[in-house]
């Protein structure tokens, strides 16, 4: 709360502070979309979702209280649900969680108008496609048995740890865990590659995500054309039954193409 005034945008910021509400932006869509009146977004109470149109494109927004932090589970889920439900019907360019602008006018003047053509072109590119995320995770017992069977050093460490009191084996336990992590990482790399190659024929784009868990076997986002969705889902089912109890396979989606829009 210093008295210094920034040169650019000081007026807008001051105005927002007086208003105490700001404009949360979810994503960019074609202008010819409609939103049901009961659609609600982030915040407490949840703000009503509105559309701001400009030319061929539009932004999904809702009012938020600038004094209240965002990030409760409900906020996160509201953001994704709104975009994913929209993405099931129309092309959507999803924004990362937490995009807030001062006013609806600013959304037009600073977001939609200056970037109109590139947003419109991007929307055309993703028309008729949706994102899926494949999350595969090694079941704990089978993968540990695999590691012990394949690696002599891991077996030796395990034996040593078992023979000695726990207090004196901290280093060995860390080394064993590190070794297991490395071996699983190598398995993950091979299985991820296999997944990417296997689904390439059914997909229009692939992004390999960082693992989100130490037992991840693959974490991959796919962009899938709507008319290939059935083939893709069947292929995922085949992979699931091939891997059986060794790997748990989950498929998320269809969702907005979060991994395929790049700033």
């Amino acid at each position, binding site marked *: 709360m210093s008295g210094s005034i920034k040169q650019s945008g000081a007026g807008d910021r001051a105005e*927002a502070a007086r208003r105490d509400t*700001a404009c949360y932006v979810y*994503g960019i869509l074609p202008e010819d979309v409609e939103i049901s009146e009961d659609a609600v977004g982030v915040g407490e109470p949840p703000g009503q979702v509105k559309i701001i149109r400009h030319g061929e494109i539009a932004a999904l927004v809702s009012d*938020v209280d600038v004094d*209240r*932090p*965002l*990030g409760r*589970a409900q906020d*996160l*889920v509201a*953001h994704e649900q709104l975009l*994913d*439900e929209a*993405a099931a019907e129309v092309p959507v360019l*999803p*924004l*990362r*969680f*937490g995009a*807030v*602008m*001062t006013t609806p006018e600013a959304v037009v003047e*600073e*977001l939609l108008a200056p970037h109109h053509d590139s947003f419109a072109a*991007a929307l055309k*590119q993703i028309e*008729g*496609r*949706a994102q899926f*995320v494949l999350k595969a995770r090694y079941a704990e*017992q089978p993968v*540990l048995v695999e590691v*012990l069977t394949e690696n002599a050093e891991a077996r030796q460490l*395990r034996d040593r*740890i*078992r023979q000695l009191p726990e207090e004196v084996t901290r280093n*060995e*336990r860390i*080394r*064993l*865990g*590190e070794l*297991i*992590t490395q071996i699983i990482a190598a398995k993950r790399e091979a299985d991820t590659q296999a997944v990417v190659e296997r689904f390439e024929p059914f997909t*229009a784009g692939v992004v390999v995500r960082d693992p*989100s868990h*130490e037992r*991840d076997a693959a974490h991959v986002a796919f962009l899938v*054309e709507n*008319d290939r969705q059935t083939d893709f889902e069947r292929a995922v089912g085949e992979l699931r039954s091939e891997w059986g109890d060794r790997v748990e396979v989950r498929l*998320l989606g*269809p*969702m*907005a193409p*979060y991994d*395929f*829009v*790049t*700033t």
Partner: protein
Amino acid sequence: MTVAVPPAGGGGLPGRSSGSGLADVIDTILDKGLVIDAYVRVSLVGIEILTIDVRVVVASVDTYLRFAEAVNRLDLASQQQGLPDLLSSAPQSIARGKSKGVAQGVLEAAGEKLQDMLASYAEEEPAPRARRRRREDD
């Protein structure tokens, strides 16, 4: 901005909704999607973002010790017949044995149910850490 895919036409099947837990949501909307800061400068509002970070740090000492512990449990489970003394000091390994009574089964079912509930809000074991993030730091 760009869409990182080759251009092509599209079809028309309507999509289905996804059943994803909070950890899945966090993986997606905190890390992916367009970053508004790249497009907007003047009228950005820096609202404080509070999120529980339920993501696991994949390579850490905690992870290593957890794996070592899991391997230990694995040993007890597969060799419990020859190690009755160890069994008595590690009751949780009994649950992995073959002689599962009705009560045990019910307890396990309850445990799994609880795990399912937890999983939908905080995948797996690590204790959630509250973490503060500010838009400007991204």
